[in-house]
Every structure is written in C-alpha cells, then in structure tokens.
C-alpha cells in the first residue's frame, strides 16, 4: 500500500486510502498528529514525537524541532554527541510514521506520497525526497500541500466547484493555491507562497514582546537553553491567546520562574507586519490565475496557524466573507496525500478523479540582452517555463551566439522570478559546443521538460551540428548527498528505537519531567512525588499496575497544566 504523509514543520501525520476513503493512522500514543520533534536519549535512543517535544524544555541540547525550515540547507543540529542534518531528522520522523503505518495495516509499507509546501524550491524538494529514501520509503510522488488540502476538500462532496482558494498557513510556511473542480478533475490554476512565514514567526513576536518585560539579568543568563525555553513558552502563550484576551508567558530556569502577561491586543499590534505579508501571495496567485477574488466560491483554511483570530480576521477582511470551516485544518493535508496515494494505486473508487498541478516557479536560463543604450547586459533571466504552467510541461526557446567564432554556449539553469539570475536559484549548468560562425548565425533550441515528480530535463539541440545534449537536473548538493546515502543511513541505523509498547509510558515520563522543570516550589515538589510513584509502578512490571498508575499521573498533570495540546 502507498501511504500519504504530511511532513509538517510543527506536526506530521500519516494516512492511507482504504475502503473508498482516506483514513488517518494513529501513532503509538493513539494520536493522529505526531509532533515533528526528535530527541536523543541518554543511551543513544531516538525519541520521536510528543515526548521529544516535551524534552525540548528539559533537554534542549539533545532535542531538535522545526527542522523543516532547514531542509535544502547543509546546516546541522547538534543532538548530544551527534550532528544531524535536516534530512536525517526528517527521516527519523518518517521512520516513526512508517512504523505506525505498518502496525496499523499489519503489513510492510514501502511506498509513500510526501507533501511539501507549494513554494518549496527544487533543493528543498530533493531534500524531502532523500529524507523519504533514508527512512526506507520509495517516494512515489511529492505533493504540494495546498493541493493536498484541495483534494481532501474536493472529495468531501465530489461536486463541481467554481475556483476556490486554499489558504495554508503552517508552522513554517505559507502557501496559497487557487483550485477548480469539474467533472472529477481537480485542477490547480495558480500557486504562490512565502517560505519564511508561519506559526514559528508568530512565536518570535511573542518572544520579543516578553523579552521587553523580563528582568535584564535573566536575559543575560548564559544558558544555551534559554532560546529553546523561550520558543516553547511562546508557543504555549500564543495558543492561549487564541482563546483568551490575555495569557501569561512563563519561563522557568532552575528555581526561578518569571511571568509576563501578554494581552491579545498587544500581540496583534506587534504581529501586524506578519499579517500584512499574508496579502502578497494572495494577490499574486489571483493575478496569475486571472480569477477575480469576488468569484471565488470558498476560502479554505488549512494549517494550525489559521486558528489564530488575527489570521482569521485578516482573511475575512481580505475577501469580505467568512472562510470555509468544513475541513479539519490539521488533518486535511495528510488526508489529501492519502487520496493521491489512492490515485497512484489506481483504486477503483477514484476512477473518475484526476489531479493536475502547476509549476510554482519560473524556470529558465541566463541570457544576454541588449539594453536601451545598445550595450549588452549579461546575467539576465530568460524564462522558458513560466510559473503556474500546468505540469507536465515542455517548452522551448531559441538562443543564438553573441560573438563571432563563439566556441560554446553555456546554459546556467535557474528557478525564480528575479530579473537577474544572481537573485534566482541555480539548478544546474550545461556547456554546449557550437561550430565557429559569425555572431548570431548559430541558433540552438533549448527545451525544458518538467514532469509530475518535479524532475527537470533539459534538451539542447544544435541544428548546425545535428547534435542534441541532454541534462537531467541534479544539483551539487544532491550529488554529494547521494554519494553519502549509505553512510547516512548507517548513522541512523545505529540509533536505537524505543520499543513501541513502551511509547505511552515514555511520553508520560517526558511530560512529567517537563512539568517538574517548569513549575517551582510546592508544585514542583508535588510533581516530583508523582514521578516517583509512577516510576515505582514501572519497576513492578505488572501491566495493570502500570496502566492504573499512568492514568493517575496523567489526570494529575492535566489538572495542573491543562490537557496536553497538539
């Protein structure tokens, strides 16, 4: 079976197409959402998900979160004595989801559809694919997140839908897509986005607000963990502000606890610049698709950050109407990925359904252009496949030599929207030898072919020699990464995974440890007592005793800090 995976910045999820519908697969804790957090235990154990997220506050030097933002870069994170890059961390999440799926389905699972933000560039996409392969998956397709949401939304009632807009604000990225559904065809008209705008950025706003009120000596404390503690506290505060007019930003270091009250009004005023940034991708996608905002049939909100009142209000103001509320903002993407998985396996129930997507970035080559003064300006971007072209796509353009007896034309291949190639992302390069002739007498045909898996192939034909040159785009990072695949897989294989049955207990312990550290004085002592009781029960090794003790401590912790959130 092929599974569909939402690999998110904050949370991940896995789903499958079964019995004519998309079904979410629960993890070992029974949750559909698995926080995208990795922690390394004392004995080189990999801890994934909710317990890892809790350990962010107790063991910040051994825990990593929000590493999706590092995909496509070479940056590594230090966890204990290990150094991991974003692909390896993502592979650990994917591996955990793979285990969840295999347990749920009772069979090996080796194929997956993994979602990526629509505005992920080529490097980030290839990194995601490699993460899947590191986890032991054959990645059948990378699916754009808003498209996945549109799939989930469209299959709710299978009716015709006039163009609607998917507004996807996740933990780290923001995507907008305009989608239309007719005769079972789900057709994406245009996509736009901002790769550096998400819930995490709103957290930073809270941190900034809080730091203004925190005592100076606390800020100067040389704790390497303080950044992580602040982020965690900010996340909590931000969520609380979605429900209340004010919330406390609480940070505990050792025995010292500081509280800063943040009002919703102050937060919204400070977050105004971020909210203003939401408008530009919306405008771009509307302009590119030619669809008028007034004729949109729905605004579909996806992604946890769309729960913020400030975002909902901005959406309502932008469109003059209330957004749609029928799909689950957290689950839609994974469910959509499962639908795509079903399409790939030719499931009969999806016989009348097809999906077509678009290329979100312009692809082209570097070029020289005569400027207004008759001089030659080099390094100008010449588009070949314009953005929002339906894929698969194949386009040609013709180029000629610019000097006499030129020996070769060098094509540097770029992705982006900037006029000068130096501001775009370079994907590869080709050197095409040409016969010696006067300037402009040699014309070559350059063809770009972009397929549904996001693979770009370039074919250059030189009529004068009759030769064709072909390049399948691999960027430099990928070459190195692929060579080291085995090595990296070996590194991950060395890490031990906690036995599955123990997952619930592990999660409770991690949560209790976090609570211990974040409360002080009497409450801390109380939590300490509960932990001792629970550990004693674990030592007894009697399942029923353990279960009873676990329920007790969970209830106690819920009373203390409210129920855990995902």
């Amino acid at each position, binding site marked *: 079976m092929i599974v569909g995976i939402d690999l998110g910045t904050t949370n991940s999820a896995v789903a499958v197409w079964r019995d004519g519908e998309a079904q979410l697969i629960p993890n070992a804790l029974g949750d559909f959402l698995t926080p995208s957090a990795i922690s390394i235990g004392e004995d080189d154990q990999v801890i994934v998900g909710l317990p890892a997220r809790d350990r962010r506050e107790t063991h910040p030097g051994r825990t990593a979160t929000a590493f999706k933002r590092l995909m496509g870069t070479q940056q590594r994170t230090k966890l204990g004595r290990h150094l991991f890059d974003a692909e390896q961390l993502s592979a650990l999440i994917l591996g955990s989801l793979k285990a969840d799926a295999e347990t749920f389905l009772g069979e090996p699972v080796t194929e997956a559809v993994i979602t990526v933000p629509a505005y992920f560039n080529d490097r980030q996409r290839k990194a995601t694919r490699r993460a899947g392969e590191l986890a032991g998956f054959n990645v059948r397709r990378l699916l754009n997140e808003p498209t996945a949401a549109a799939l989930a939304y469209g299959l709710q009632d299978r009716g015709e839908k006039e163009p609607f807009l998917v507004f996807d604000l996740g933990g780290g990225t923001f995507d907008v897509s305009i989608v239309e559904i*007719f*005769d*079972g*065809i789900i057709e994406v008209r245009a996509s736009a986005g901002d790769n550096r705008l998400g819930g995490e950025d709103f957290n930073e706003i809270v941190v900034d607000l809080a730091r203004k009120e925190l005592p100076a000596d606390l800020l100067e404390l040389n704790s390497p963990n303080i950044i992580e503690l602040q982020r965690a506290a900010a996340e909590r505060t931000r969520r609380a502000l979605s429900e209340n007019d004010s919330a406390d930003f609480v940070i505990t270091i050792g025995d010292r606890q500081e509280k800063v009250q943040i009002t919703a009004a102050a937060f919204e005023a400070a977050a105004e610049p971020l909210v203003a940034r939401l*408008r*530009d991708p919306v*405008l771009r996608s*509307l302009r590119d*698709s*030619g669809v*008028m*905002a*007034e004729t949109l049939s729905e605004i579909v909100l996806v992604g946890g950050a769309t729960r913020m009142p400030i975002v909902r209000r901005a959406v*309502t*103001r932008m*469109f*003059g*109407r*209330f957004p749609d509320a029928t799909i689950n903002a957290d689950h839609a993407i994974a469910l959509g990925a499962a639908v795509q998985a079903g399409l790939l396996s030719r499931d009969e129930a999806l016989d009348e359904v*097809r999906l*077509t997507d678009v290329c979100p970035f*312009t692809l082209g080559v570097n*070029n020289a*252009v005569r400027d*207004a*003064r*008759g*001089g*030659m300006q*080099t390094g100008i*971007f*010449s*588009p070949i*496949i*314009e953005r929002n072209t*339906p894929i*698969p*796509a*194949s*386009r*040609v*353009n*013709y*180029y*000629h030599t610019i*000097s*006499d007896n*030129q020996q070769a034309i060098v094509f540097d291949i770029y992705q982006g*929207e*900037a*006029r000068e190639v130096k*501001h775009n992302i370079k994907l590869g390069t080709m050197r095409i030898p040409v016969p010696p002739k006067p300037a402009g007498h040699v014309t070559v*045909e350059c063809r770009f*072919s972009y*397929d*549904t*898996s996001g693979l770009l192939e370039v074919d250059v*034909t030189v*009529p*004068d020699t009759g030769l064709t040159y072909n390049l399948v785009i691999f960027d430099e990072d990928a070459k190195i990464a692929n060579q080291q695949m085995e090595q990296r897989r070996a590194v991950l294989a060395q890490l031990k995974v906690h036995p599955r049955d123990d997952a619930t207990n592990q999660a409770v312990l991690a949560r209790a440890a976090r609570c211990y550290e974040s409360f002080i004085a009497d409450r801390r002592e109380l939590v300490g007592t509960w932990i001792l009781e629970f550990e004693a029960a674990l030592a007894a090794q009697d399942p029923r005793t353990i279960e009873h003790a676990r329920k007790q401590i969970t209830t106690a912790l819920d009373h203390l800090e409210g129920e855990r959130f995902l």
Partner: protein
Amino acid sequence: MSTAVWDALGIAETNDIGTVRSAYARALKQIDMDADPRAYIALREARDHAIFLIRRSAIEAAQGRRDKSETPHQASPGLEPTEDPITVPAASYEDHVAQLTRLLFPDGDDVDPGTRHDELLKAHFNALLTDPRMDEIAFRVQAEAQLAHLIAGSLPRSRSLIELAIPAFNWLGPARVDTLPAVAAILDHAQSLGDRQATDIDDSQSPIFSSGATGHTTGVHTSDTIDHNAEFYSAHYNDLVALFFPQDENAQPLTPEQKVAARGHFATLVSDPRMDLVGFRIGAESQFAQLIAYSTPRSDCIVLMAIDFFDWTTTEERIDQPELIAHILDRARGIRFVDAVQAPDHPFHAAWTELTTPLGDKLRPAVSVQPATMYRLLASIRAEQPLIERDLDPARVAMWDKKLAKYGSSMGPPRQSGGRVPLWAIAIGVFILLSLLGRLGESMGNTSGFTSPPATLVGSRSGLSATMADSAVDIDPVLAEIGGNGLTLGVLRDKNTALSTLLDSKWTLARDQGQNLSDFQRETGKLLLDRIATTVRNSADDNLIIHYQQERLSDLRMLALSAPADCVYLGRPGRIAVGDVPAFFSPERKELYARILERADVKSQPIESTGPQLDRAELSAIAARAGSSPSQVTMLLDGKMGSNEQQCAARIAEIEALLALPVTRGAKLLKLI
C-alpha cells in the same frame, strides 16, 4: 490548425466552454499523465486554445467587430455555410510561399482581394505547415522568419494569417531574447484587433472608482452602506482625475495648494475600507498605476505615497514587473533626487539652483558653482535620471554645456586618484607643439585642439587591450576614421556620455569574449554609422539634414563616375556608407559626422518612414534634371528599371532638386531618402 483542436478533444466545434471542459475531462481520464507527458501536454494545449477561441469570438461579438473573414469553421449563422471549403493542390513549402507572396503582394495597386481571399491564404498557410521538413529545427526556424516577414510586410492584407501563425510558432509563448521585429510587429497588430491570450477574463481593468460604481457587494457588507460610500469615494477620484488630466492643454503646473489637495484625495481613497478586499485592491492598484503613469509629471505629488501604499518596490528586479510600475518607480527615483537636492546643505544644491534658474539676457551664471561640480551633476542626471533634465532650464543647460566644453577632455569622468598632472596641461603642451609643427589643419573647430597621433586601423596586435583605461586606444582609431582626429573617446565622454558609455560597454564585452581587434573595430564603425544615420533621419534640425545630404551628394557624384553600382547602393534610403570602412570621407564630412555623433541618440528608435510625398511639380523638376519623364524617373528611383548609371543619375537629380527647394520643404523630403 483549428480542426486539430477539436479533434484532439474529440468533439465537434462548439461555443460552450462547459462542453470543452467535459471533453477535456473525459480525455484526461483515458491517458496516463505520468507515463505519457506528451499526451497530456497536447490535450491541455488543445483545451486552452479551444477556450481561447471561444472567448475571443465572444469578445468580438460583444464589441460588434465580428470579422467577416473568420475561419470557415467558426459557427456563425449568416455566413455561407453551404460553400465548399477551399482546397489547394498539394505542393512543396516553397510553392505555397510563392502563392502566398503573390496573393499578399499583388502587382497592381487596389486589387480587389476577392471574397475568398482570406480562405485561400489560410489554406495555403495550413498546407505549407504540413511540409515534412517543418519538423526539422533549422528549416522551421528559417520558415518562421520568412513567414513572419511575409506577414508583417503585407499587413493588413495578411491579417487573417495571424491567428494561424501565432499558435503555429508559439509567438505568444515566453518572451524570447531574439524575437524577430517582424513578429513583434505582428503581435502588436494582433493586440490591436482585440486578440488576447487565454485566461479567465480579468476585468480588473474596469473602472472601480468611476462615478456611479456600486462597489463590489459581498456577503458581509450590506449594499446600502456600500452605495453611499462608493459615491463619496468616486467624488474624490474624479477630483483627482481632474487635477491630473486637465482639459486645457496649456494648463499650468499644479500649485502647492493643488498638490496638497491631490494628496488629500489620494489618502482618502486608500482609506476606503474596500481596500482590504483583495479583489478590489487588485483593480484599484491597476487603476492607480495607469492614473499616475499616464499623467506624469503632474502626478509626481502622489507618486511616493502610492509606491508606499501599494508596496511597489517589491516588484523591482522581478521579471513580472508591470511596465507602468517600472515607469513610476523610475520617476520616484527622480523625485527623491530632486527632493534631496533642494536641501541647502546638499552638495549639488547650488548647481541645481543654478540650472533651474531661467536664463536671462546675460549669458552668466546666476549662482556661483564650481565647473567640476556642475559637470558631475549634469553627467549624473544624464546617465541615471534622464527624465529630470526636463525640469531644468534648457537655455541654462546649453550655456553650461558650452562652458564645460571649453575644458575639453580634461573634464573626463571624475577620477578618484588625485595628484596626477592634469590632462589639460598635457593637452595645451601638445597643442602648442603640434601647432608649431603646423598640423592644425586636421583639428576640429570646437574642441580643444588636443590632437592624438594618427592611429592605424589595423593594430599590430589582434586582441583588445587588457585594461579598461585603454579602451580609448582601441576605439579612437574608429572615431578618427569617421569623425576626424578631433573626435576621440575622451571628447565623447564629455559631450555625449551615453554614446561613450555604450562604446565602453561594447568594448568590455568584446574584451571579455576575446574578440579580435579588427572585428571589434569594424563592428564599432558600423554601429557609429548606424547611429549617425538614425540621428539624421529622426532629426528635427533642417540644417543638419540638408548638410548631411549635401555631403552624400558629393559622394554620389564621385561614385557615379568611378563605380555606378556603389553609387546606386549608397543612394538607397538610409544608406550611409558603402561597405564597412568609410575610407573616402572628406574632412568636411568627418567634421559633420563628429558633430552628429556628439549629439547622437543612442536608443535604437524606429526610423520615421512616412512623410510628405513629392508633388507633381517637384517630380517634374527631378525628371527634367535627370533627362527623362516623371513616370520613368519614379521607376528609376525605386530601382525597378534602368542601368546602374541611369539609376545613379536619377538619385543625384533627386537630391539636387530637393536641395534646391525651400529649406523646410526640402528637409522634410530629404529626410526620407
């Protein structure tokens, strides 16, 4: 071409977009997009083109411009549906092209095209596309160029071919660096007919603020309140339009009070609560862009506010930056510069005040300014903010240009290093030396007399100089050949910075690509001659035109005796030289060219090709001089008959006769030849 679209979709031709979409959906479910991308691409293009055809005919019907020569497949009640479709005998590509040429360029004038002319054209066009060689790249590229020229050269007769040619060669595809001018001309023509690329019709161009607009009602607002507000905002918008587009052509620039009022109107308009709606905003942005761009410079007072509100600076350096916004951002740069320079402590403040003070009776500076400062200000305005020059007093600028010219090439681009012997000292030294040697005959009248040693055209090395500072070494010989020894790169840097910058940048490019010296010099020579020809043809200076033609005439006379074929060649309109090396330019000619180059426009502009026609009397005069009849002389001038000697004589007669006319009339006619 059109049937292919409907065949690919598997339906009969229709006017209903829904039918097209359903057909597409059906076909899509039959193919495997992943395994066979080409099938999908073909299907999608067919669908998009079908929708484009339907939309276009809807637009034309709505605008009442139903073209009678529509493709025979277009479902239109009223046209003759019972006529047989035109077929043409199968033939080679060349035959079809020949037929098209015959149809598009008929021998006599005013030949009636015939009712089925367009169908015949299309039949031939479709037929030549099926030539198997069209699959070969080289052949196709040549065919495209040939057909583009054919169509462009015979507009509007070839109009019906445009809709076939555009999809056949993908002329509406991504902009190409080498788009043939012919194709560009064709696309312009197509645009003016109302053809549009297939998209949902985006009516964001519709007037959002026009009076009576009810605003876009949505589910959340009630229409009552919107109507009321819409009137209010419309009033402000109309006031703004009235300020920027005055009815009276000679309206004075905006007074400070009016500028404040304009800003107030704009501020009110952007505080409209509807601005939060993205749909409204897109339309408003487009409307304001047009309002501001088309009313420059009156709209200067709100340019910075608009850029700030709509965040137009984010469009900089993007390939999809709309032209209007690029224009507005350019203007903003100028406005900021002007604002900055008003501050009394700005280094250019004095120079600016001087240049904007109208020149009185005395040719004296009103404000004391260092020449170097003035030079830098003028150079920087001309290079970076040419639009600002409009704000300066032209007489004042002319006076300063002349003043600064006295310093000659020593006023080159501001040098960063000091402590060198000033060039003007060297210049004077050499001047004295050479004048003593009696070499002044070669120097030009209005330069410093600084002469360079005569340079050889073919250098002793084949490559270009290694350092930028030596670009003059490579370029000066060419300039000397064309404009005499007094025309050097240094002089050009002084007088025509744009041209010298152009030459420098070409030199840099040539050097970077390892071009050899003689090629570079030949190309540079061609470029300069081209610029001279363009400048003259577009010039408004009658004396210049006359002078230019006088020089040309003397050359033609010389060639008439020695090489009539060359004479004919040079006699063609717009020709400036025979071959690449202008070895035979007389000193007077060189002086003229030097002067022209000093004021040459470096933008390549379209050459004016229309103008007054010769009247009967003028034609007779020419015929008399040439010793033949008016109709004969016309044919000779067009090169349609006669020997080289005869054609040459006709051209000489023409120029002589036109030079004998009153200056204004003569110049107008001489411009065209």
